[in-house]
């Protein structure tokens, strides 16, 4: 139905509405360029907006993200497409890219929804809430999370029973089941890819028991339990709702591990685990937190001091990678490892195990371009041909990379990398 394809032009396209994409979009827009920000999820803010606090300053992640997010969404120079996916990108010439974008329906008129959540109350369907990393349920008519931007409802059509209860409940009557996918062809002069990373799927390491033992959770699930917009009002283990008192962190779950195809270090897990340990010590003063590690990589500004602080607070650090995890009849978990400092095998019981999952590449981007125009590195991160002098440049002129799309990074590094990508994009746009 070519007649329905909409066309638009912008100076720059930023793909990915996480913290890196958002920062890049703001930099461009603040310097007078028109930006289209495409986000495949329902809300911008990426993973950062869902985090609890951030290391090493322990300030609230949402408090840093939400002002940025609202600045982005209010900026007159930035057009945001949420729930939209880039499908194809062709470089037609110098400073001319043609980008096909599919805007998927959310079945709610975005402009009219006030975020009153009455549809959510009315909806009878309950499914696992992906924004709480499946810790709790949500409705099929739902607002992704309380600080989502746009804070607008959406209908999860795959799980919706089309009962119409939400339609009846909605005061401004903005629920619209007739919405269709919209196709756009967008012409832009420059592109910034900020597609971020994926979390390692711990199901790939069955001996750690994720998905088998209920009290083995991922670090992102713990992150949600600690966040201000947390699902429960305290920390509990999923198996029986008990407040845990002996918590273990399994570092390098899916990182520095050639057997799962990811031999590189994810760069963030040590620090976020230390941060969570500190927050847990605060939330559960009686709890015992142990971090099992190979090497602690607290390398950034203030990180080493943060690590020392955790040791001072009484977080246990044991050098030794967990070999396997088994469960006893109480639902507690037995961790088997070699305590390297003592040079001997040990087994220790914990009532909650947090797998510190690594970051792996999100290689969506390569498929948008034809014939390998956009090169990836051996780990499927976007290849940086001039990583020393121009880290934001990719193998294709006019296409820049920001944040963790080019490799593991923490938040400050992602933001700096986004600054670099926007600098390169701005000078590319200005240059004759």
């Amino acid at each position, binding site marked *: 139905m070519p007649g329905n394809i909409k066309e638009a032009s912008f100076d720059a396209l930023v793909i990915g509405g996480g913290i890196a994409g958002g920062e890049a979009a703001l930099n461009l827009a603040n310097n007078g360029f028109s930006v289209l920000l495409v986000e495949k999820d329902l809300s911008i803010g990426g993973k950062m907006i869902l985090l609890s606090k951030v290391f090493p300053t322990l*300030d*609230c992640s*949402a*408090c840093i993200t939400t002002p940025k997010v609202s600045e982005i969404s209010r900026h007159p120079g930035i057009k945001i497409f949420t729930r939209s996916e880039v499908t194809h990108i062709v470089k037609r010439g110098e400073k001319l890219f043609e980008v096909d974008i599919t805007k998927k329906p959310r079945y709610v008129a975005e402009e009219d929804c006030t975020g009153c959540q009455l549809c959510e109350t009315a909806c009878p369907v309950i499914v696992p809430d992906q924004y709480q990393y499946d810790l709790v349920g949500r409705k099929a008519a739902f607002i992704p999370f*309380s600080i989502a931007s746009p804070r607008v409802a959406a209908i999860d059509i795959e799980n919706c029973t089309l009962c119409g209860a939400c339609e009846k409940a909605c005061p401004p009557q903005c629920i619209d089941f007739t919405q269709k996918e919209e196709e756009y062809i967008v012409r832009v002069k420059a592109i910034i890819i900020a597609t971020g990373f994926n979390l390692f799927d711990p199901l790939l390491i069955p001996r750690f028991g994720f998905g088998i033992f209920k009290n083995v959770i991922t670090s992102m699930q713990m992150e949600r339990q600690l966040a*201000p917009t947390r699902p429960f009002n305290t920390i509990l283990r999923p198996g029986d709702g008990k407040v845990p008192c002996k918590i273990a962190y399994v570092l390098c779950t899916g990182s520095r591990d050639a057997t799962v195809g990811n031999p590189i270090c994810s760069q963030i897990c040590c620090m976020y685990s230390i941060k969570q340990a500190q927050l847990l010590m605060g939330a559960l003063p009686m709890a015992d937190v142990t971090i099992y590690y190979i090497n602690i990589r607290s390398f950034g500004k203030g990180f080493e001091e943060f690590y020392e602080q955790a040791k001072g607070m009484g977080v246990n650090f044991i050098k030794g990678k967990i070999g396997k995890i088994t469960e006893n009849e109480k639902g507690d978990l037995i961790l088997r490892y070699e305590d390297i400092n003592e040079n001997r095998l040990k087994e220790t019981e914990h009532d909650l195990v947090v797998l510190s999952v690594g970051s792996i590449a999100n290689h969506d981007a390569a498929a948008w371009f034809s014939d390998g125009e956009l090169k990836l590195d051996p780990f499927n991160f976007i290849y940086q041909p001039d990583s020393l002098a121009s880290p934001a440049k990719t193998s294709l002129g006019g296409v820049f990379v920001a944040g963790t799309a080019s490799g593991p990074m923490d938040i400050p590094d992602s933001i700096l990398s986004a600054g670099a990508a926007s600098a390169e994009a701005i000078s590319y746009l200005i240059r004759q």
Partner: protein
Amino acid sequence: MPGISIKSARILVFSTEKISDPAIDMAGLLKLHYPPTVYTITVPCSSSIKPKWILRAYEKGFDGVFIAADGSDCPYGETCTEKTGKLVQRTHEIMKEKNIEPARLKMAAICSVCSESFVKQMKNFNEYLLKNIS
């Protein structure tokens, strides 16, 4: 209807735009309840509150004044806590002179996500004021 018959103290809260205000907002978002006679005036930084404003509140009938300070999160620098502390101290002195119970002025750091702590503070302060002042 609960709540109507229960009398609550009138509390004026000075909160800050970037730090404690979001926490108070979030208390509402999380439907955490506190006495409805708590009113908020927003200022840029807790160290910018003039003692005479506080005194005026008592004059006009407020039972208590609560300063929701920035603490170390203040965007205007770390000296904020110390400066706010000083102005509270000074106000306490004037209050003594004027025979106003100094405990009617309270200060505590409320970080941008300290909703629970804010609500707790309000409840305790309210109880205290009801018991000791009016």
